């Protein structure tokens, strides 16, 4: 292994990621009110959306499906990720947010700030 090349590569890795952050790339994405239902269907192949509640900052959303299951959406960096959840959901109140656990350690829980969430359940 060429150690000089390895050290140079690692420095370039950190510098490049730093430049991307400095330029402010990848910011400002949000999930729109009218977008969540369609997103859930696009990301979860056999999911049919009925109604959606979106976080007030557009960072996450919960969509109820026609079959009673739910699609939990959240922004992962600049793009959305989704998980299909079955009722009953694991929800905790966390200040002014509802925190929904997807049941996966790596995926973690997702906060949704929107009091209308309870009407969806």
């Amino acid at each position, binding site marked *: *292994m060429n150690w000089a090349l390895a050290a140079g590569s690692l420095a370039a890795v950190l510098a490049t990621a730093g430049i991307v952050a400095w330029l402010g790339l990848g910011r400002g994405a949000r999930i729109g009110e009218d977008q969540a239902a369609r997103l859930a269907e696009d990301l979860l192949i056999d999911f049919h959306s009925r109604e959606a509640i979106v976080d007030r900052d557009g960072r996450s959303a919960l969509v109820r499906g026609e079959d009673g299951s739910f699609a939990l959406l959240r922004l*992962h960096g600049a793009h959305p990720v989704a998980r299909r959840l079955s009722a009953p959901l694991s929800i905790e109140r966390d200040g002014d947010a509802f925190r929904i656990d997807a049941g996966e350690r790596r995926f973690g829980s997702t906060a949704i700030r929107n009091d209308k969430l309870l009407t969806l359940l």
Partner: protein
Amino acid sequence: MPDLPNPVDLAVPAFVLLMLAEIVVVRVRALSGAAGYEPRDTLASLLLGFGSTVAGALFGGLAVAALIWAYQFRLFEIGYAGWAWIAAFVLDDLAYYGVHRAGHRIRWFWAAHVIHHSSQHYNLSTALRQTWTGAFTLGLVFKLPLVLLGFPVPMLLFVGGINLIYQFWIHTELIQRMPGWFEAVMNTPSHHRVHHATNPGYLDANYAGVFIVWDKLFGSFVPEKRAGEPGFEPIRYGLVRQLGSFNVLWAAFHEWIGIGRDVWAAPWRAKLGYLLREPGWSHDASRDTSATIKAKWAARASYRAEPEALPA
């Protein structure tokens, strides 16, 4: 035996410069709301690339040693003639097509390759998101015929490196289409965007490295739809089930962990299936493969179209 350099090492400065140029263009054009790059995704991609070079240094020698050992059983003495370089490049690209296709159709191979598809972005940094565990699959069996034909191993390693370098520039959204003749023969950003897409209509397509003709020959070619074409939808990159994590260790090993868990929990008759069947296969059909995803997608498309098809 000539002492050939590793062309990928020589290309690293060009990789960095081209990436920086792409970053600047994305920023200036504010492409996709400047979402063409994201700092944590870029850091993960580049760290995964760095880890890949470390893994290559640690384990790559095993595959090379196996190929050098096999070379003693060669049928012909090909040597380093000019024509041999061209033949080696073309045949190595065919071997790449085979190993890449296996990388998507056999879960054991997919466990090593999934790392390259784990970003939801498609930019030059994604190209560097390379495997850490490729040495633990049997990908080298696809190169073995070339060694047994008599192509020297250093020549195959060199043209393999050129192949990898070629594939760097096709990981971009900045280039829409190359000239028609080029699109017809070569792998291009357009063809490879399809390969990285999770949209059902694009799954399991365009496995080519350099020459797209292999996909056309073996029935795996799917052209990218242009905006305005029937059925067009924006490409969603990454995995059918996105990781939702920027953890590089998770990106590198999650599928291996998944295989381990599935093999452990499966009944004896199904254990091998979780290793050798396609990603998403399960013995109780409780999960989706690309084939079932495509079938559901087709059913949904007709379900959505149905109300419009009915007379008023």
